[in-house]
């Protein structure tokens, strides 16, 4: 269907068509949400939550369903930025900052570099039977159980509280000092392991003449 949109060839039809579709769905949805807020059916934070939740779920669907690997990576970026917005709604600014920095910047960039270096094609064509029906069955059972259980629980009526940066840092570096050190060692080992793993692969290449 997207092939029939009259566009110059240098545009990526999936991205542009996806953007048009998202706009066509998103603008009426936004009008509906703003109207609901104006009539007092839902509060303003709830409206922000719904917008962020829609972005997160659509991005996650795109990430697991799109056949093109670069489109999946871009969808993942949208999801992770939406998750950062959810962290802001949960009153934890520090983690929202970390999420945008580490995921929005680092991890997605690393994944895209990995895509380029492995010259990865799209998701391989399945020849021995798709696992999607089995995966869908298992996931729907699991998520159904989760949601049934958590909706039947009695959570009271709690409200979110802000944790000040000072308290957070104090608790992090006093009571959790040992886990911080363990994580530091873990990061060190991971970086060293990745370097060693990639480096030894070049040993059997012919050495340059001096």
């Amino acid at each position: 269907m997207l092939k029939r949109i009259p566009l110059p060839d240098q545009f990526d039809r999936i991205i542009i068509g996806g953007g048009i579709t998202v706009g066509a769905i998103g603008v009426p949805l936004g009008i509906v949400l703003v109207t609901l807020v104006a009539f007092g059916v839902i509060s303003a934070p709830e409206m922000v939550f719904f917008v962020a939740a829609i972005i997160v779920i659509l991005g996650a669907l795109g990430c697991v369903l799109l056949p093109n690997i670069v489109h999946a990576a871009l969808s993942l970026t949208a999801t992770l930025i939406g998750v950062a917005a959810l962290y802001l709604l949960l009153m934890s600014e520090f983690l929202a900052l970390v999420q945008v920095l580490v995921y929005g910047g680092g991890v997605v960039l690393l994944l895209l570099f990995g895509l380029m270096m492995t010259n990865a094609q799209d998701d391989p064509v399945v020849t021995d039977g798709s696992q999607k029906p089995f995966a869908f069955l298992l996931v729907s059972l699991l998520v159904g159980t989760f949601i049934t259980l958590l909706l039947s629980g009695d959570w009271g009526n709690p409200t979110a509280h802000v944790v000040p940066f000072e308290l957070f840092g104090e608790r992090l570096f006093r009571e959790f000092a040992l886990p911080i050190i363990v994580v530091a060692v873990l990061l060190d080992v991971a970086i060293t392991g990745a370097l060693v793993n990639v480096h030894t692969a070049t040993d059997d290449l012919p050495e340059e003449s001096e």
Partner: protein
Amino acid sequence: MIPIEYFLTLGAILFGLGLFGVLSRRSAILILMAVELMLAGVSINFIAFASYLDTDAFSGLIFALFVITVAAAEVGLALGIVLRLFRERRTSNVDEASDMRW
């Protein structure tokens, strides 16, 4: 105020979508992306519990920070392995790297 159930439901859905991706994808890098989705779902749950129910100790926030750190380390290391696999076999399809499966 937003009820806590909204966040928990969203976390469960995100975890489920990530699990679906892990089970159904064949490319190693796409599986890594789906793992990131699962970790994001778990982090949402941690932070929701911390900021709604555990406001004095807020251990969930610190756990979420550790989750993010470990996820970053995991992506770096796993991409190193995928790169190595690609150099040796010219593929990043996990079906073609099942030598150690019994």
